[in-house]
C-alpha cells in the first residue's frame, strides 16, 4: 500500500476544497442574484473542463503553464512559482477542473433562498458579509455539502489532468489514483484492489462523516413535522 500517495491525495483534496469552495460561494452568489446578458454562456463556459478528456485538459494546462509559455515564465520570474510538475500545479489543476462540481450546487442553493429572507436581512441592517455568514451560508448548507462531496471525491479519483500537470513524481505529484492506475497497468491487480479498497474506505468514511455531521448541524429544517 502506497501510504504516501494516499496522504498526498488527501492533502490535494483538502487543499482544493478549502480554496475552491470559498471562491464558489462568491461566484455562485453573484451568478444566482444577478441576471445579465450572456449569463447562460458563462455558465456553459464553466463546464469546459468537464467536456474535454482529462488528459487533454492536462495537456493544455501543461502547455499554458509550462516553462515555455509566457504565463509560466511570468509566474516564475515574478513570483518564483513553478506550477508544472509541482504540488501547487496539481492544486491549480484540481481547482479548475472541479469548478463545475462546486459551483453549480452552490449557485442553485443561493437561487433557492427566498427573497423575503434576504429582504429581512437587509432591513435588519446586516452588512453583506454578515448576511453571508449568518443567514445565507446556513441556508445554502446542503448545496455546499454537495459541492464538497463531489469535489472531494472527484479530486481523489482524478487522474488524467494530475498526471499531465504533475508527471507522477513520488511524494510530490503521485497521487493514489495514479498509483492505482499504475498497478492496474502493471497487471498488479492485487495491489490495485487493496489500494482501491483503502481509498474507498477512506473516501466513504470521510463522506459519510461529512454528510451525517452536516445533517445533524443544518438538517433540522428538512422535516418540519
Amino acid at each position: 500500500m502506497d501510504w504516501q500517495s494516499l496522504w498526498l491525495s488527501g492533502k490535494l483534496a483538502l487543499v482544493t476544497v478549502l480554496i475552491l469552495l470559498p471562491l464558489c460561494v462568491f461566484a455562485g452568489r453573484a451568478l444566482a442574484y444577478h441576471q445579465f446578458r450572456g449569463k447562460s454562456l458563462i455558465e456553459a463556459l464553466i463546464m469546459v473542463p468537464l467536456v474535454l478528456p482529462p488528459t487533454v485538459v492536462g495537456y493544455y494546462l501543461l502547455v499554458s503553464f509550462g516553462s515555455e509559455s509566457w504565463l509560466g515564465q511570468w509566474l516564475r520570474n515574478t513570483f518564483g512559482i513553478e506550477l508544472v510538475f509541482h504540488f501547487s500545479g496539481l492544486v491549480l489543476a484540481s481547482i479548475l477542473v472541479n469548478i463545475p462540481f462546486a459551483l453549480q450546487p452552490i449557485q442553485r442553493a443561493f437561487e433557492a433562498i427566498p427573497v423575503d429572507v434576504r429582504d429581512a436581512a437587509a432591513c435588519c441592517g446586516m452588512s453583506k458579509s454578515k448576511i453571508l455568514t449568518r443567514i445565507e451560508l446556513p441556508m445554502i448548507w446542503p448545496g455546499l455539502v454537495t459541492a464538497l462531496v463531489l469535489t472531494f471525491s472527484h479530486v481523489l479519483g482524478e487522474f488524467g489532468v494530475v498526471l499531465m500537470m504533475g508527471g507522477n513524481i513520488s511524494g510530490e505529484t503521485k497521487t493514489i489514483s495514479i498509483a492505482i492506475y499504475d498497478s492496474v497497468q502493471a497487471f498488479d491487480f492485487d495491489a490495485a484492489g487493496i489500494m482501491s479498497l483503502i481509498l474507498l474506505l477512506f473516501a466513504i468514511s470521510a463522506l459519510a462523516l461529512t454528510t451525517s455531521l452536516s445533517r445533524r448541524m443544518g438538517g433540522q429544517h428538512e422535516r418540519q413535522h
Partner: protein
Amino acid sequence: DTVTVAAAANIKFAMEDIVRGFEQHSGHKLRVSYGSSGNFASQLRHGAPFELFLSADEQYVSRLQEAGVVQDKGVIYAYGRLALVAAKSSPLTLDNEFDGLRQLLKTGELKRFALANPDLAPYGERAKALLQQAGLWDAIKDKLVLGENVSQAAQFAISGSAQGGIVALSLAVAPQFRAKANYLPIPEDQHQPLAQRMVLLPGASAAANAFYVYLQGDEARKVFADYGFSLPPKAHGAP
C-alpha cells in the same frame, strides 16, 4: 469484412502509411484502434473483438498466450529504438555519451527529465537501464517525470518543462515532434532490444491473415524502418 486491428500507440505513424498501402494493395478494409498495449491485453482477455494485436512489447503477447487467449506466440514485426530528446529551448546538448546531460546535472540546470514509467512501459524500462548503465540513474532519479506511456513522456519533453527525456525514436521522428524538439537516436547496441510482437487472435479472418503477412513484407518493413524502427530478420516465406 473489415479487419479489426488493435495496435500499440507508438506505431501509429508508421501504421497509417502501412494501412494505406495494404488497403490499396488488397482491397480489404482495416479498422485500427490505437491504444496502450497493456489496455489491449486486458481487453482481449475479456473478449475484445479484435482479429490482430500489434503489441509494443512481446511480454503482453506471452501473457495472452499464458492465459490461453491466443494459441501461438506470433511474430516480432519490429524493434523499437530509443532517442534522447530535448525541447529546442532546452540547454541540453544531445550526445551519445550523455555528457551534456551529466553537465546539466552538475550545474543544476536540469530540473526535470522525462521518461515513460519504467514499471509500466518497456520504453521506460529500457531508458532506465540505459541511465543506470551510464551511471546517471542515482543523480537523475529525483528529477524524473514519468509519463503513463512513452507518448506522454514525449509530451513532457517537448513542452519544455522537462529539459530532456528518453523516448521512442518512432515518436521523435514524427514531424510534429521535430518541429519543437531535437532528438538523437541511441545506438541499438546500448540497450536490450525492444521486441514489438504481433499475434493473430482466434477466429481471425482471411483478410486479417493477409494483413498479418503483409506486415512482415518489404513494403511494411520499409515504412517501419523509415519511422525509426529496426527490423527483425526476414521471416521465411514472407513476400
